[in-house]
């Protein structure tokens, strides 16, 4: 599903954000990317939805090298990828419903279908009663569930999350983790960048550790020891 071959990313000033990354994530996998701040987790995620172009190497999604696709095709790539962030990136002057429906509007769905599908996902997230609330009136956990609903409403093949629990308490973290697991069970490949050790330990999923832009350790699901040292 996701393959990175010898990927390096350098900033314009010459500093290296990622160097020689080789990573393969299978269809339906659930992977945590971890590492200290500045390790390159966010940059790696941004490469996967073509918000950044690598300086070197190939990024393959479903066998297609996305570093080669022309700019006008990037939106079509992104329609198969859901993305959530620590700061949620919700539109403050729109309701919960409108924030989620935007994903389906982009796809050109009709109003009736958008209403049905949006309410369905909001129900899954447990926030259907707040569909007409403005997002800034919601708690942090609720806002993140709205962001997740927006990312998952069109059943993406891949879900990318960048520090999704960074602003949340333990109860909300558990809820978010269970939403990730549900999406994963339905076949979505999930990649979560986090340095929340508790979240990682609780989930027992595959772990990729980055330090200073390099993969230093990969631990497979349910294993306790180091699987591969690079």
């Amino acid at each position, binding site marked *: 599903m996701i393959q990175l071959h010898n990927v390096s990313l350098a900033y314009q000033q010459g500093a290296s954000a990622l160097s020689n990354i080789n990573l393969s994530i299978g269809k339906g996998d659930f992977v945590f990317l971890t590492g200290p701040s500045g390790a390159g987790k966010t940059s790696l995620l941004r490469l996967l939805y073509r918000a950044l172009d690598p300086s070197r190497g190939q990024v393959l999604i479903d066998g297609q090298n996305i570093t080669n696709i022309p700019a006008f095709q990037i939106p079509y790539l992104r329609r198969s990828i859901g993305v959530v962030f620590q700061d949620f990136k919700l539109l403050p002057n729109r309701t919960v419903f409108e924030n989620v429906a935007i994903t389906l509007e*982009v796809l050109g769905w009709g109003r009736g279908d958008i209403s049905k599908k949006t309410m369905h996902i909001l129900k899954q997230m447990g926030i259907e009663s707040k569909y007409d609330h403005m997002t800034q009136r919601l708690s942090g956990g609720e806002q993140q569930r709205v962001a997740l609903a927006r990312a998952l409403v069109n059943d993406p093949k891949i879900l990318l999350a960048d520090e999704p629990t960074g602003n949340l308490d333990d109860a909300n973290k558990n809820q978010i983790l269970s939403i990730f697991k549900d999406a994963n069970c339905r076949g979505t490949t999930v990649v979560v960048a986090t340095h929340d050790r508790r979240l990682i330990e609780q989930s027992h999923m595959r772990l990729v550790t980055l330090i200073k832009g390099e993969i230093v350790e990969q631990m497979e699901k349910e294993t306790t020891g180091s699987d591969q040292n690079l």
Partner: protein
Amino acid sequence: MNKWKKKQQAPTKTFKRPTLAGDGFGGRARFFLSRALSNIRQNVFVNVVTIGTITLALLIVSLFLLVFVNLESAAENWSERVQVTVYFDKELSPQEQGSLRTKITAVPGVSRITYVPREVAFTRFKSRLRGQETLLEGVRPEVLPTSFEIALKRSYRETASVEGFVSAIKKIPGIAEVQYGEEWVRRFNSFLNFMRLIGVLLGGFMVVAVVFIISNTIKLTIYARRDELEVMALVGGTRFFIKAPFLLEGLIQGLAGSTISVALLFAIYEGFLHSASSFVVFNPASAGMLFLPVEYIAGLILAGALLGFLGSLTSLKRFIPV
């Protein structure tokens, strides 16, 4: 979102599979228009500020235009006074009049030609000396010359053209003395050219300032909503899909701003300038100030819409993160 509640209660249409928002161009256009209108509703303050800025900026330009149009119209009337007079020592017979009239009219530039016999010249002279008629005691009309007064077409009222015309008619046999108030014509045309230069400079400066103000206002409003652009790009919106509602919004803002500015200009004109015509005497030939011609009004409204559209277009180029 009460709409949703109503929709839930109403029997809902069943869809086999997701249908597109609208069929073809019309459906998509309706979607973008409704999105633009709901954007305006959701960002009322920003839109009021933008429309207000466009209104004020265009009002300044249109006020200037109004003054300029009135000055031009006044100049047009004043320039009617640019006329050439051909004097004769004797009374011309109808045949002579006819023959000279034909020859003079054949010279390019003549708009009107009038024969002034001695009696008419004497009456005019008397009316100019009203109150001092005693000066004319014993004076007979025969002491005055007869003349042809020739009014020139608008394009022949420039100093050089008048001089050219005069030298052309001097070549007609039987014409000796020609007067056209050289100094007045020269001064009048210099004033007119100076006024036009000032108008073009001031107008050009104003247009540049207005374009700068409007484009920057739109840029700031789009900058304030860059998160929206980012989210749209993130969920897979194409550049056109992201841009279209913003462009329509800009078009609506420009159209609203320019329409309001024209309405305000009309209110100012009706409430102040029109009634103040007794002391704002720009134009000796008309009762007072004129309002802008229809084509100028249409031009102003279209310019507003275009400014809104182009302002949005250039700002979006910078902020769409695709």
